């Protein structure tokens, strides 16, 4: 064996251990990192897609893209009557509505009578509610579950996405994001 070959192989001998070390560091990091199983929307900063949804409840009109282009920031809440966390965030939604925030709802895969019952039980903070039976708007804005809440600015551009239910401690954050979108 030539000297060069010997040198090469002596380095190669340590290669498996080095690779194992790299693997070890990677999975340690993987174990300690905060578990993040959510898929965030990649559509933040982009304008809402074109849509026009029928009304999901009798006393609220349907929802279309134009309803967001009024110059004032609003919330778009993706919810469903069959979703338990949606009922949990209802008091916070009411609080936001009472503070003058305009909230538009998109009911995912829902029946009108169920939406009506849900609103009767949990309160109705929505100005308009669109009925999204095939998750068209949900997919269109990169939402992957219910509930999710989006901050939309006055030009109809998505500014912020909140995944999961809005808890009492999240209300201030949402208000701040709305204020930022209004600037």
């Amino acid at each position, binding site marked *: 064996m030539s000297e060069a070959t010997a040198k090469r*192989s002596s380095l190669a001998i340590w290669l498996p251990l080095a690779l194992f070390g790299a693997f070890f560091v990677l999975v340690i990091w993987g174990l300690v990192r905060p578990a993040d199983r959510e898929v965030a929307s990649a559509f933040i900063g982009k304008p809402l897609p074109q849509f026009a949804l029928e009304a999901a409840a009798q006393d609220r009109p349907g929802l279309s893209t134009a309803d967001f282009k009024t110059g004032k920031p609003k919330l778009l809440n993706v919810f469903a009557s069959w979703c338990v966390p949606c009922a949990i965030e209802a008091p916070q939604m009411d609080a936001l509505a009472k503070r003058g925030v305009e909230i538009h709802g998109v009911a995912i*895969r829902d029946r009108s009578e169920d939406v009506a019952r849900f609103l009767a039980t949990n309160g109705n903070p929505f100005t308009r509610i669109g009925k999204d039976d095939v*998750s068209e708007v949900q997919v269109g804005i990169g939402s992957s579950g219910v509930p999710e809440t989006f901050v939309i600015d006055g030009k109809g551009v998505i500014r912020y996405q909140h995944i999961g239910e809005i808890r009492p401690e999240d209300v201030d954050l949402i208000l701040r994001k709305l204020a930022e979108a209004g600037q």
Partner: protein
Amino acid sequence: MTRFVKQFAGALLLVLLALAHPATAQDLLPPAPYAYKQLEDPALEAKAQALMETLRCLKCQSQAISDSDAPMAGDMRHQVRTRIAAGEEPEAIRTWLVERYGDYVSYAPQNKPIMWPLFAAPLFILVMAALLLRGRFRRDPKDTGK
């Protein structure tokens, strides 16, 4: 006893997760028209099927939308089929979804710098093997090497 209850609840949750059904969320709506219906044109359906096999179901653990009973996977199949039927190209639909969900939604790795090492890997492996093996074989077949 409480620990037992907690672990049992954990086990139950796992079972439900494994079934890819959200524990409490079960909508009553029928599936979207093209969730469980093929396109009339077999060529278009084949195109849609090939695409759906490479799109990731966002609500499931690790499944393509073509392999999942989750309602959202059905809705995404509906999207793909209606768009294909409307004449869109599969790669355009993939790009459309990647714009909304990021690269995560596509099982086919996208051509982005962060994926380049993945594509370079096979070449790297072959070059490494060639380097390690160089000079290891007996050159002269007459030399018995003893």
